[in-house]
């Protein structure tokens, strides 16, 4: 019984890894589901919600109250999922959203630019290698800035994660096997104490969100 978050750049195999872990461990694997429920909780359409939650504020933008509310809604939705037990979360910012919880295994998946560009070209054959690489660099920069604005952190900071795996050498299957060994360690088990903390955390998130909604 455990909770795993997977952070990764776009096209770095995060979904495939989450699916592998989900089928191997029998845990539900979620990402969009969390956003969908968070959007519902604040009465926004998923499209508007994603726009606010996922896009970086402009050059002079900052963390506005509306954005804070959206982060809180996602955190609450994710915390609710955690109260149901085992989970693999491969959406945005799992390691930040759950950083107060003990026993969460925080994974970062990295992959070489060429490999990611190839994955993009496979799905969009009209792109050249240069175009695909430029697109990915752009997305990475945007994401790094988003993390900086939202959490004041560097997305590449190794200290934010428990385990970083490089897909340059690991296949998804091997990464999945290694993470399975990691999550089997006693400190990642959901003990009664950890479960109590998860429920307390979820209740606190709900309270904060309802206060925020009341304005």
């Amino acid at each position, binding site marked *: 019984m455990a909770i795993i978050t997977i952070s990764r750049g776009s096209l770095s195999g995060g979904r495939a890894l989450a699916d592998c872990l989900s089928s191997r461990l029998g845990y539900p694997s979620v990402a969009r589901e969390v956003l969908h429920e968070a959007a519902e909780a604040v009465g926004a359409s998923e499209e508007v919600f994603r726009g606010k939650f996922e896009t970086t504020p402009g050059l002079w933008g900052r963390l506005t109250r509306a954005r804070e509310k959206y982060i809180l809604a996602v955190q609450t939705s994710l915390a609710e999922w955690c109260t149901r037990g085992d989970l693999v979360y491969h959406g945005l910012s799992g390691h930040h959203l759950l950083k107060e919880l003990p026993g969460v295994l925080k994974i970062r998946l990295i992959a070489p630019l060429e490999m990611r560009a190839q994955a993009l070209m496979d799905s969009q054959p009209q792109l050249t290698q240069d175009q695909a690489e430029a697109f990915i660099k752009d997305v990475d920069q945007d994401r790094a800035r988003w993390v900086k604005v939202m959490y004041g952190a560097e997305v590449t900071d190794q200290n934010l994660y428990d385990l970083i795996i490089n897909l340059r050498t*690991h296949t998804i299957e091997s990464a999945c096997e290694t993470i399975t060994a990691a999550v089997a360690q006693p400190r990642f088990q959901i003990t009664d104490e950890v479960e109590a903390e998860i429920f307390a955390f979820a209740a606190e998130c709900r309270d904060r969100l309802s206060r925020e909604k009341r304005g």
Partner: protein
Amino acid sequence: MGIITVQRGTRSGGETLANCLGENLGYPVLGRNVLNDAAAQLGVPAEDVGNKMEERPGRFGRKPLITKLHVAAVRAALVKHARKGNLVYHGLAGGLLLRRLPGVLRVRLIAPLEFRIQALMDSHGMDEASAEAYIQEIDGARAGWVKSVYGEDNTDSNLYDMVLNLESFSISEACDVVFTAASRPEFEMTPERRKELLDFDLECQVRLALLEDLGTQTLDLNTTVKDGLATVTGDAPLLNKGAVGKRIAEIVTGVDGIRDARLALKWLDPSP
């Protein structure tokens, strides 16, 4: 069978992890003792080699050349041990020294500063402030060395196959996790990889021999070896072309295991 390198900051538990892996996998474990082999080859004290593997080499004069020579000697010594096909190395710059080799599992261990300070205080009876200052100094020097010699940032995750945070894993748990990764087919010593390893060993020996020789050590040469055939590329002075070429060929073919040498040098006229 495979090769694992464990890179870490000072007092991050790298040696303990390496010993645990060595025991579980039945692999020999190598650390700073590889410096002794390199020192014996160069005829200098092991301490000198250790210093050259940690001090920034500088940009001018003979210092960069001496660092190059020492790094080449350490790498040649390390690869000689790796020839047997299985090894856990927790000494300096392991992942970088072997980065051309496929199938090597490059592990980086990170640990919170407080954890490392405590380890140093326990082992050396230091006070907290001195321990912290020492760790910061060593970390800074190593980062500077990697930047100068390899042009890389040693905290860049892309340099490693996996990074484990000891805030979340005990050494024995980390050992379990790395053991699982090392047992995967990607890190097996296949017959093809063994051949590449043997060629790489020859490459390292040739590189060292060329750096040890006063007539060739200042030349900007690069050697590749395939099936025992060495190809030397790079720049050499046009003056005395015949003698320089002959000397390079002699050194290269003098390395045990090299079948033949092909020189593909660019001859430069120093005063055109």
